[in-house]
């Protein structure tokens, strides 16, 4: 039996831990559901399901074959998280997923890539509510948006304007039809179908996503962005994004994601492939705000994503920036393969885990070319029972002489029930390369909060300010249009854990 506390100091006892705990009870304002008529595949995964998806999308035969090959590879693979504990490498825990209980295709009936007039008004209203108007008169200026709703792209803004400079931007399905040679050349060239369990699954059943091609020497005149929305219940989302930046081109691309609040977990297993040719630069930013589940860990999205970029050409550069605030479980390692000499890879990450969220995230920097350079800045924030893992691999291969990596990994803990862990994997196969790794863990101090309070700031504002200060080096990498949103989101996702 527990002894009565020695000091009956109710206010003091409440304030420290409880105040911090309340902080993690966020409102998820994107958690609504839109009632639209949709066309769904019955739950279950088989060759028939894959043929159904491929037919729905009017795909050429080679793509169906490609999918089936991936499916057979997947069948032979072992679900990595179902291995016995000692062999499990990712620090995430969840019940076995029944892949036969998921529906692999769900598309609203009323969509048309030709005209918004033919799109279900409920869908347009959904995007308006999410702050991403698709109607011409209301479109965000300076940002072209591809809106993906469950398994299909429902609209792409500024498509024509981008086409004037030769840029291809739109739904993946559309690109398969319009530019099959480009898709065929690059699809699976960075993430092979059998790369890992979820990449194989995605390759078999992927539905839609964005395709981007920037021609030689073109600097994309606006931000490109894809907004992913999971709406239907019991449906998985398996999108595929492919971005190719031809010689000397530049593009900045951003993805955002939200989903309704549900008690069942939903699976999101995406694959993103980036290819940068000689002197090309790709900046890829993510603001991930999938439904995280409730405080007790019921519901939420399983976010199992494979993102990889190949710096194929000399002097090319790929930069990943991610702000991960949502999902019940996040499992992703946006990586760079630095093939070209003097190529540059960057990874800037903020990952927040609150409630019962788990995140196992990081990057891989594979140095193959000479004088290649990579920078990794990772900021993990854990609150309540959140578990945050940074897992990062840096490899300096034999030919990668004169290459450098700098990794900085900072963790912040809010309260004392949460955890932060760092796992660096470093391989150096040549003597002229250098790898630097710095790590720190700090606790958001009651004293910091009190100091802010004493200057008139509410506790919520104080925490938001302290957390944003902690993440500053990452947030400044985001395109300006989205930095403000990310700052707000960080505040919201930790709302309530300090009262």
């Amino acid at each position, binding site marked *: 039996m527990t002894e009565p506390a020695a*000091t009956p*100091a109710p206010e003091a006892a409440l304030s420290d831990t409880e105040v911090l705990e309340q902080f993690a009870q966020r409102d998820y304002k994107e958690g609504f559901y839109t009632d639209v008529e949709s066309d769904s595949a019955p739950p279950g995964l088989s060759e028939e399901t894959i043929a159904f998806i491929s037919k729905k999308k009017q795909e050429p035969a080679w793509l169906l074959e490609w999918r089936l090959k991936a499916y057979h590879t997947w069948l032979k693979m072992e679900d990595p998280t179902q291995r016995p504990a000692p062999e499990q490498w990712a620090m995430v825990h969840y019940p076995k997923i029944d892949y036969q209980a998921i529906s692999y295709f769900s598309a609203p009936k009323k969509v048309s890539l030709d005209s918004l007039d033919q799109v279900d008004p409920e869908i347009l209203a959904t995007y308006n509510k999410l702050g991403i108007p698709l109607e011409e008169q209301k479109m965000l200026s300076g940002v072209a948006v591809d809106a993906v709703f469950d398994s299909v792209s429902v609209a792409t803004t500024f498509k024509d304007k981008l086409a004037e400079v030769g840029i291809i931007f739109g739904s993946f399905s559309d690109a398969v039809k319009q530019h099959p040679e480009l898709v065929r050349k690059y699809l699976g060239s960075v993430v092979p179908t059998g790369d890992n369990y979820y990449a194989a699954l995605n390759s078999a059943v992927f539905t839609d996503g964005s395709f981007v091609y920037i021609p030689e020497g073109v600097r994309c005149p606006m931000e490109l962005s894809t907004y992913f929305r999971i709406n239907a219940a019991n449906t998985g989302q398996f999108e595929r994004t492919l971005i190719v930046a031809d010689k000397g081109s530049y593009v900045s691309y951003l993805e955002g994601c939200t989903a309704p609040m549900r008690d069942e977990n939903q699976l999101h297993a995406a694959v993103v492939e980036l290819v940068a040719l000689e002197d090309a630069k790709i900046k890829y930013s993510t603001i991930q705000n999938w439904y995280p589940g409730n405080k007790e860990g019921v519901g939420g999205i399983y976010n199992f994503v494979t993102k990889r970029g190949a710096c194929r050409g000399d002097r090319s550069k790929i930069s990943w920036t991610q702000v991960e605030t949502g999902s019940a479980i996040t499992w992703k390692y946006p990586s760079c393969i630095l093939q070209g000499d003097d190529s540059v890879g960057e990874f800037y990450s903020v990952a927040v885990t609150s409630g019962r969220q788990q995140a196992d995230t990081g990057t891989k920097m594979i140095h193959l070319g000479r004088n290649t350079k990579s920078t990794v800045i990772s900021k993990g924030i854990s609150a309540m029972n959140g578990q945050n893992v940074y897992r990062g691999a840096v490899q300096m291969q034999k030919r990668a002489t004169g290459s450098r990596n700098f990794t900085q990994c900072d963790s912040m803990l809010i309260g004392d029930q949460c955890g932060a862990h760092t796992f660096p994997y470093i391989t150096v196969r040549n003597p002229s390369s250098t790898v630097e790794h710095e790590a720190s863990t700090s606790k958001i101090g009651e004293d910091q909060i*009190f*100091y802010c309070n*004493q200057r008139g700031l509410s506790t919520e*504002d104080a925490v938001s*300010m302290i957390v*944003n200060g902690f993440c500053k080096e990452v947030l400044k990498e985001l395109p300006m249009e989205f930095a403000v949103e990310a700052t707000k989101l960080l505040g919201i996702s930790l709302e309530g854990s300090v009262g």
Partner: protein
Amino acid sequence: MLKITNLHATVEGTEILKGINLEVAPGEIHAIMGPNGSGKSTLAQVLAGHDAFTVTEGTVRYENEDLLDMAPEDRARKGVFLAFQYPVEIPGVNSAYFLRTGLNEVRKARGEEEIDAYDFLALIRAKMALVEMDESFLKRSVNEGFSGGEKKRHEVLQMAVLEPRLAILDETDSGLDIDALRVVANGVNQLHTPQNSAIVVTHYQRLLEYIVPDYVHVLMGGRIVRSGGKELALQLEDRGYDWIREETAAAAATTQPAGA
């Protein structure tokens, strides 16, 4: 403006304040002196609302309101300012932004309009000149990597910006060179009007040559054991605290009822 009556406070079950009585009228400056560990910072933090301390007995009235009932940020917004003995570092948070956010909260509470970035810059420049701080500090993170003396000046700068009704300075003079001491004193004196009051915690009579107190109190063992005018500070500087300790003990022995 401030009336502390029989204030008792504990931290982690240990009683630190054991019945403080203190009244501060508008426009008065009170100095509090006392040996290390006697409870001076505890008193300051309790007044500012730090929740590590639990008030177990007594009351504090501030401008006819129950101060202990207010959240720390509300106390700040109503004009209670604490210059910390150990100012806290907040990495990544730009000092100018921090100060402007605080000032706007205080202004909102006073029913004034928020100040925009442009007007704020003019204001902060004037205040920085007052405390002789270089403008480059505005771009730095709050207190991060500041020297001890710089931190203290930064506290005075914040005080000058927020213009509190009741300023509590906890050893703001410790670790300062002579020039800085004068700067801190200037900051306090500048704020000093017939309405605004200050409680100055210090170990050194020296500060009181610049900031002339109306009263000097000696805090010892969680109680104010002696109060006097500014000459009391001189006496303490000369003789230390032992004589007060002895006199207090003797007085306690004679007044103590038998058997207690």
